[in-house]
């Protein structure tokens, strides 16, 4: 499992716009870079990131080789109700990882 850093408030006022910052440890091998023996290393990147709030998708991003290693993505969402935010990264070589965080909305 890749190490994940998630930065979001534990609690928020109802209707407030919260900022969510995510980072996942991943080499994002671009597929254009020669290895030590001169052959091009196969592409191994995260192609899709999505965030759902109590099961409803609120944000989605498609990534390409031009995204830096350990992809950092920051976005916002409206705190509508208490519940769970789930974050999913999907990529080459059947990479798939999901993390969840609870949020209390008052």
């Amino acid at each position: 499992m890749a190490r994940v850093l998630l930065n979001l408030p534990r609690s928020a006022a109802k209707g407030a716009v919260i900022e969510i910052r995510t980072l996942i440890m991943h080499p994002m091998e671009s597929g254009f870079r020669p290895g030590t023996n001169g052959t091009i290393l196969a592409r191994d990147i995260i192609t899709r990131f999505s965030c759902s709030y109590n099961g409803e998708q609120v944000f989605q991003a498609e990534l390409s080789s031009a995204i830096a290693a350990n992809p950092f993505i920051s976005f916002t969402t409206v705190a509508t109700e208490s519940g769970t935010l789930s974050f999913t990264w999907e990529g080459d070589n059947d990479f798939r990882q999901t993390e969840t965080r609870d949020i209390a909305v008052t």
Partner: protein
Amino acid sequence: MLNRREFAAGALLALTLRPAAATPEDQAAAIRAFTGGAVPREGRVELDIPPLVENGNVVPLKVTVQSPMTAADHCTAIALFNEKNPQPQVATARFGPRAGRAELATHMRLATSQYITAVAAMSDGSFWSTRAEVIVTLAACIES
């Protein structure tokens, strides 16, 4: 001493060994593919990227779109395109009214100094864009 034929062969080899790079035409084609042929208008999009970067491997950037983000009028997508990396696409983010603000921040790679274009798609079907020039002193993608 290098004769002319050897020099020509060497120059040809050097040309073919250069990594594949997208061109401004590829970038324009990728933008057309995203907008479905529509030409995006200038404005409403703000692209915050350092004008001079030392290390092209990690370039922080932030895109902000002026949009009320209501159910009737919101930004549906932000797409980023580059001119001279091997591929013109960088990232595409999709939003709904629940995003609150149309904002995307990420870190990208830059193979060389070039223009970066951000295009925003709105729920009314319009497209808006802006572009920024970035000068890179240490390139990404090429060295191992």
